[in-house]
């Protein structure tokens, strides 16, 4: 593209966006009278990021500019960008939601997401900066057969990113729909087009800035909400939590989670139970397996690794991780207050009524703290948090698309298909843009096709594949002399197949027999429950009557859902994989598939020797430790 044609296509894309996004505001979460507020906040966020993209687009001339912002990012900037790349909607809204619904377990879940960065800091970030260039496969291809390792590395990058991307697109579509009331397809297309505008024109420069802006907005919004929630307690943790556990809404939630055993407990005990483990995680082994996937998988996520190529030296790479850990960890500590604050002020029942997974806890808390649904400030806060959520999805998706597109263009096209031939700087940038367009169109298509599917499993799966395939390969090629091409190819295949295969036969899939059995159980219990509630409805006690009315509504809802499930699965007996029940009991395959991936690399390397890989060991090891020649792999 010439600069002029690029400029015009940018303007055209920009002009098309409001047509897609704005007339579709139908039944917004923000009150009728404040609709303009949502418009203004969204328009402001989009305008800022678009302006940054416009400036960035002028600077993208070479492949290095496109993939790594020319290596011109500082450690502090990169730390914020990593936080922006990593804090997806799942962790930002999801964890606050888990805490608001399940208390302690939700907070415990957030810890693994931070600890993961220790692995990145100690073992991966600096060596990768010193020997890598644009992609994960660059590291693998350094001392191994470039074609073979680029192919497996690119395939794994695309696999991991596509799983993650699908989860983001579907989750994002649902979220935007709930938050601002535009329909699902429109929000997927809006996310897709915005993301494409950033990546296509601004490459890594724009992506980095969008991620930084989003991370700053996210942290700022969270700090404001936490200050408002916590200040009344004089910033005392015990005083705040004492109010949370004394809340009847929280006690009622614990009681309904525990079922029969709750009857023997006092109100105070029920409240205190909210701060104790075991309300969400039932099988400890599941949590350990998930923890392994998180702690080792983050170091194998291509879109995170790619961020270390945007800084110039290993020292800056180290600084970026330390900053990222401060921001990400600080944010998760804030979610403790967001989650418990939402449980206390909004109430678990009301949060779950809007979204069963608790994703709306943060936004609802923002609205409450601002003054409620009918106040200006309440609606402003809701609009602001919604805009941050939207920016979050776009920023994460942009990073993922860039990682996939670089694997496609830099590894497969330039490195394999045109191996040995000269590709000009313009040719490389063009290839990168075409790949971005392909991946972007694909992500919109997948997002729409996967509507209504259970995608929560895909994030866990992305981490599992990254931990079982990418992590062993990257780690061993950096630290083990005997590691070679055969090891990398075997490890990638074994790790990916084990992680995907075990997930396909795990309890994560829908098993119609179990779904139907659960539905029948609900329907069988319905008449007794309904008559009990009806009796209570006519009781003299107003509070009991109100509770009965609520119970009746809940019964109606569960019956509708049970009937819908029965109809949906009427003709099915087996899961997608043709199984009646899971063959493998772990929800996350990490515990088994990570050791298998390592075994694959080790056995492959030992069985088939490769002189070249061993001869290049000195170079790889000396370079990764000394940073010699790093400037050659940074921007030219």
């Amino acid at each position, binding site marked *: 593209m010439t600069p002029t044609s690029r400029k015009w296509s940018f303007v055209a894309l920009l002009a098309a966006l409001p047509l897609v996004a704005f007339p579709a505001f139908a039944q917004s979460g923000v009150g009728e009278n404040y609709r303009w507020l949502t418009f203004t906040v969204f328009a402001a966020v989009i305008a800022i990021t678009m302006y*940054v993209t416009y400036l960035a687009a002028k*600077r993208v001339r070479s492949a290095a500019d496109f993939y790594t*912002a*020319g290596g*011109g*990012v500082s450690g502090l*900037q990169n730390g914020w960008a990593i936080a922006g790349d990593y804090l997806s909607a799942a962790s930002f809204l999801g964890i606050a939601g888990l805490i608001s619904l399940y208390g*302690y377990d939700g907070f*415990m879940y957030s*810890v693994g997401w*931070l*600890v993961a*960065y*220790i*692995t990145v*800091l*100690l*073992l991966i970030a600096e060596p990768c900066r010193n020997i890598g260039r644009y992609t994960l496969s660059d590291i693998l291809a*350094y001392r191994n057969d470039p074609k073979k390792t680029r192919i497996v590395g690119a395939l794994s990058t695309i696999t991991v990113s596509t799983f993650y991307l699908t989860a983001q697109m579907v989750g994002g579509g649902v979220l935007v729909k709930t938050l601002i009331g535009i329909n699902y397809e429109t929000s997927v297309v809006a996310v897709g087009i915005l993301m494409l505008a950033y990546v296509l024109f601004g490459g890594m*420069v*724009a992506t*980095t*800035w969008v991620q930084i802006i989003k991370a700053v907005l996210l942290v700022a919004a969270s700090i404001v909400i936490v200050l408002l929630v916590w200040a009344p307690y004089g910033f005392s*943790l*015990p*005083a705040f*939590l*004492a109010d949370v*556990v004394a809340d009847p809404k929280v006690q009622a939630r614990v009681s309904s989670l525990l079922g029969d055993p709750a009857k023997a407990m006092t109100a105070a005990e029920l409240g*205190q139970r909210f701060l*104790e*483990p075991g309300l969400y*995680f039932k099988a*400890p082994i599941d*949590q*350990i397996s998930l923890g392994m996937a998180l*702690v080792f998988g983050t170091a194998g996520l291509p879109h995170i690794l790619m961020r270390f190529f945007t800084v*110039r030296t290993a*020292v800056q790479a*180290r*600084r970026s*991780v*330390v900053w990222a*850990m*401060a921001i990400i*960890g600080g944010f998760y500590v804030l979610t403790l207050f967001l989650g418990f604050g939402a449980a206390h002020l909004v109430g678990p029942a009301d949060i779950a009524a809007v979204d069963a997974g608790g994703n709306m806890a943060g936004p609802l808390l923002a609205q409450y703290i601002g003054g409620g649904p009918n106040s200006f400030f309440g609606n402003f806060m809701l609009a602001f948090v919604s805009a941050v959520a939207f920016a979050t999805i776009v920023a994460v998706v942009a990073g993922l698309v860039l990682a996939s597109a670089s694997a496609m263009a830099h590894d497969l096209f330039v490195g394999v298909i045109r191996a040995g031939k000269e590709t000009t700087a313009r040719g490389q940038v063009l290839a990168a843009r075409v790949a971005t367009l392909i991946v972007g169109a694909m992500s919109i298509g997948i997002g729409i096709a996967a509507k209504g599917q259970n995608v929560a499993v895909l994030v866990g799966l992305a981490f599992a594949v990254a931990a079982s395939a990418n992590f062993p390969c990257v780690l061993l090629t950096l630290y083990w002399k005997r590691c070679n091409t055969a090891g990398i190819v075997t490890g990638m295949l074994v790790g990916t197949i084990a992680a995907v295969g075990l997930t396909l036969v795990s309890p994560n899939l829908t098993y119609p027999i179990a779904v139907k059995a659960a539905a029948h159980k609900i329907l069988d219990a319905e008449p007794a429950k309904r008559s009990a509630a009806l009796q209570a409805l006519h009781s003299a006690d107003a509070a009991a009557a109100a509770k009965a009315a609520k119970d009746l509504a809940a019964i109606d809802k569960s019956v509708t859902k049970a009937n819908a499930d029965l109809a949906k699965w009427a003709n099915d007996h087996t899961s997608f994989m043709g199984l009646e029940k899971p063959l493998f009991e772990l929800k996350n395959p990490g515990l088994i598939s990570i050791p298998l991936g390592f075994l694959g690399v080790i056995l492959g390397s030992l069985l088939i020797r490769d002189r070249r890989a061993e001869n*290049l060991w*000195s*170079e790889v*090891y*000396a370079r990764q*430790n*000394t*940073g*010699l*020649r790093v*400037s050659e792999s*940074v*921007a*030219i």
Partner: protein
Amino acid sequence: MSKPDVDWDAIIRDPDFQSLHRRKMVFLWGLMALSVTFYFLLPIGAAYFQDLFKIRVWGVVNVGLLFALSEFIVAWTIAVVYSRKASRDFDRMAEKIAAKFGGANRSRKTVAPAHKELSV
């Protein structure tokens, strides 16, 4: 990718490099083991030592909650300890080795402008 003017094998054999390698291995893998062990104590404790986690120590705040918060402190501490150690020791040692073996490499470089910040 190897260029004849840097003798990588000689770097690997160099006593300074050997010493850097040894110190880094002990330090990095030591911190790694510490961090992974401490992390997995949390889910293990939450699953098998619930009575301990439930003990209230600071108002309603119990051992489990403090332990989860301590995970953050420990992770940050490890990050700070490592980056201080790296910038005090490892970086200096690496620079010394790079200067000894890559002098030609450094002076030959014409690219890399002295740290250009990302700006738009």
